[in-house]
């Protein structure tokens, strides 16, 4: 799981999507399917966490940005 941290969101998503496709094709042996599914669920969690993280950062930036003071000269005009 620690190795996965270096995986980007996109890579993780691609893997996840592959897994979904694989599962969709349907002729996956059951045991294999459940293993794949599990892997998928892990990836899904990874992506979810990454998204949450990004979301938090953006939220923070918006807050900071709002505090910025405007220009005096620009207002004079």
């Amino acid at each position, binding site marked *: 799981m620690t190795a996965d941290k270096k995986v980007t969101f996109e890579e993780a998503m691609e893997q996840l*999507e592959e897994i979904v496709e694989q599962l969709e094709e349907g002729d996956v042996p059951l045991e294999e399917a459940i293993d794949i599914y599990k892997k998928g669920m892990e990836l899904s969690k990874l992506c979810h966490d990454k998204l949450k993280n990004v979301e938090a950062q*953006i939220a923070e930036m918006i807050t900071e940005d709002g505090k910025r003071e405007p220009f005096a000269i620009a207002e004079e005009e």
Partner: protein
Amino acid sequence: MGTERYLTVIALTKYIKRKFDKDPHLQNVFVKGEISNFKQHSSGHMYFTLKDEKARILAVMFSRYNQNMKFQPENGMKVLIKGDLTVYEQSGQYQIYIKEMQPDGIGELYLAYEQLKEKLETEGLFSPKAKQDIPKYPECVGVITSPTGAAVRDIITTIRRRYPIAKIIVYPALVQGNQAAPSIVNCIKQANADGQADVLIAGRGGGSIEELWAFNEEIVARAIYKSELPIISAVGHETDFTIADFVADLRAPTPTGAAELAVPHIDELAERIWNRQSRLIRTMRESMSRQNIRLTRIRKSYAFRNPQKLYEQKLEQVDKYAEQLKRGAEKLFLIKQEEQKLLLKRLDRARPQELLQEAKQRYENSNKYLTRNMTAILHSKQKDFKHILSSLEAMSPLKIMDRGYSLVYSENGELAKSVKAVNVNDKVKIQFSDGSAECTVVDTEGKSI
């Protein structure tokens, strides 16, 4: 041989003419004789024959020489002639070309006069170069004349009237008679020795040629010539010309005229001085005025009156620049600010929120299908299983027994398909569709076919 030795007439004539022309005795010849055959051409030239009892000679007097003659020649008139001899080529005649002509009668005096005049003129006594300037403002005028004549009175009166500040010294001289000439000479010498006079007037009133004769004497002429004081001659009337007149520094027509020539008029002179002075003042004033106008013009010149122009425009320019500078800086600042704002706006717009949304969407999709697909697989497998299970159940051999059949298994557990497979007392098992029963064989009986 041939004709070369024969001269042409013209050559011979020219030769003869040259002989005449070269001979000094045939130039300026003085001749006296009687006029005959006198003719005056319309051009004014005079042609006549000069003759005496024994000879005759052709004479020509061109108008140039005769126009100032005081008498009109006529046939039979005795005349004194001065002229040059030469040959008139066309007629081969020698002729005298007359330069001067006097009626004969004065005789020796006149000849002497002419000869002396000629002599002195040749010596250069009459030359303009020998003439001295007459002082313009003499302090003292010497008068050489008879103290008793009208001439001295005229001279003194005139000088007194015109220029009373001039001193007059009379050098009394005899002006006629044998002693006249030496007396005049003496006076000239005396005046020169005195050195008091600035100018001398020498002369006398009018009279006959004999009366005026002293002024034609050589000693008088030479004394006048030698005099260091300038001399104005004033002999007789205007028409009288004496040798003294020729040699004098200035000839006056009359004694009164001589006085007028000797001194200026004092009023005119004063007037002249006043005039010069006023011209001086006027000129100086004009010059001053001109310079003043010039200076005033300069001082009133636009550039001088408006020195502000030297810097006003520049001032305006500085202000303009300062304004432009300010505006430039502000504009620049605004441009930069605008650029920054624009970028900021773009940055805001490019905020990866959308990216996040997309990512979320993508994620949600996959996430949803992950479980869905897995569930689908499970269901499919379940379905397959159920199907097979029911097929199996349908094919269950146990179902035959439902119709009342039972299976008998021998003691070794094998299905007993014949009665021969069992013996009496064998323990067998009967399988029913819904259970089994343990039994002991009691009897056997084979089937008779």
